[in-house]
């Protein structure tokens, strides 16, 4: 267990938090951040597609249905809870629903690394679940805001327009595009590019997490604004969603490892696609809420405590 927490990835994230608390001048150039993001999305997509090409259709179909169900239900219930229990405004509740309904590619990768280092096998096609789960929840959350907010002025983009934008948006385009490419190129193709997209993957993840830690560290100061409520939600939601995800995964016939990873996906909160979409479609929502919750609470919780916890839960459920 400790080996997984004491991985270079997790420690780099902690170092990033420390650096930002020390007010270090360490800063990634924007284009490095963007390049790392491109790399991770392409690498996850390609490997997922390649592994998917090795799987049989009826192995994949039930997990896929489970994944889609999860990311349609989570934003609905999250929105409701945030409005009622959290007393958040419509845009804020919708933005939080978008973040918790969507998924985090980096948390996902940390879960893969966790399983690999403990030697627990899982279905190779899981990255294609990640690709499917990124967009729907964001669309649903934005539609919820549109339907409930009658005061909203003219000139707003229609949900259809937003759907088009999200699907053509860089993260889903890269994920879906490279899953397809991975599917098509087969073993020969995969081996041509795996020295770039597979072998150094965990190293790149380490670099990315250092930067994530830097931003999360800065967001810690915003925790007060959100208050205890936000901290509570930011820990409770991932636990509930992960449990749900593991249960769905088991029902869909996934292995112990696969179900845990589906749980991690359900329990993770997006911070690449969702914040960008919310800035444009829900500009009235306050980034101090959704970014702080997703990046400074849920993300470290999942990385440090969540993943091992979900694994324990899965072991319990599968026995």
């Amino acid at each position, binding site marked *: 267990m400790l080996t997984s927490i004491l991985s270079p990835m997790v420690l780099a994230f902690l170092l990033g938090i420390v650096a930002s608390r020390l007010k270090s001048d360490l800063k990634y150039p*924007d284009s490095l*951040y*963007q390049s790392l993001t491109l790399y991770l999305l392409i690498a996850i997509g390609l490997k997922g597609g390649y592994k998917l090409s090795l799987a049989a259709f009826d192995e994949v179909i039930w997990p896929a249905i489970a994944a889609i169900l999860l990311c349609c239900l989570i934003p609905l219930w999250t929105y409701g809870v945030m409005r009622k229990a959290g007393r958040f405004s419509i845009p804020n509740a919708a933005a939080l629903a978008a973040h918790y309904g969507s998924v985090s590619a980096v948390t996902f990768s940390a879960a893969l690394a966790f399983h690999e280092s403990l030697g627990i096998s899982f279905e190779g096609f899981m990255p294609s679940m990640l690709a499917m789960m990124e967009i729907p929840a964001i669309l649903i959350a934005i539609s919820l805001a549109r339907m409930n907010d009658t005061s909203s*002025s003219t*000139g707003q983009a229609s949900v259809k327009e937003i759907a088009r934008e999200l699907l053509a948006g860089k993260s889903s385009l890269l994920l879906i595009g490279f899953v397809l490419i991975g599917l098509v190129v087969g073993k020969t193709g995969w081996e041509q590019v795996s020295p770039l997209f597979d072998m150094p993957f965990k190293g790149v993840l380490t670099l990315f997490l250092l930067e994530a830690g830097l*931003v999360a560290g800065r967001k810690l100061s915003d925790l007060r604004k959100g208050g205890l409520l936000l901290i509570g939600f930011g820990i409770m939601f991932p636990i509930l969603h992960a449990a749900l995800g593991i249960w769905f995964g088991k029902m869909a016939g996934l292995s112990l490892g696969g179900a845990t990873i589906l749980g991690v996906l359900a329990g993770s909160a997006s*911070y690449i696609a969702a*914040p*960008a979409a919310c*800035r*444009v479609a829900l*500009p*009235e929502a306050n*980034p*101090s809420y959704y*970014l702080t919750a997703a*990046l400074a609470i849920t993300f470290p919780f999942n990385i440090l405590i969540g993943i091992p916890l979900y694994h324990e839960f899965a072991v319990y459920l599968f026995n």
Partner: protein
Amino acid sequence: MTTLMLLTIIAEENLAGPIEEEIVRLGAKGYTSSSVSGKGVSGIRDNQWDGENIKIETIVSESICKEILSHLQKKYFERYPMIAFYHPVTVIRTTQFT
């Protein structure tokens, strides 16, 4: 040499595409854009997570300047982190701008 207005718009980076398109539609013959970071009433904007800003500068006649401003005010000002301002500049060839 003529005097025209240099209108500067600083806004959420994701609005770059639409705003550039709209100012051209409203009569600007060109524009110049660059990535900037900043801070204002809606908080800090200096990293890719919180979002950054785009600075769009366009040289236009005073009347087009005002039209663009009133368009921006209606469509974006209330909802997005954004500022706009203008001042007169002297240009050489008027033909390139009007």
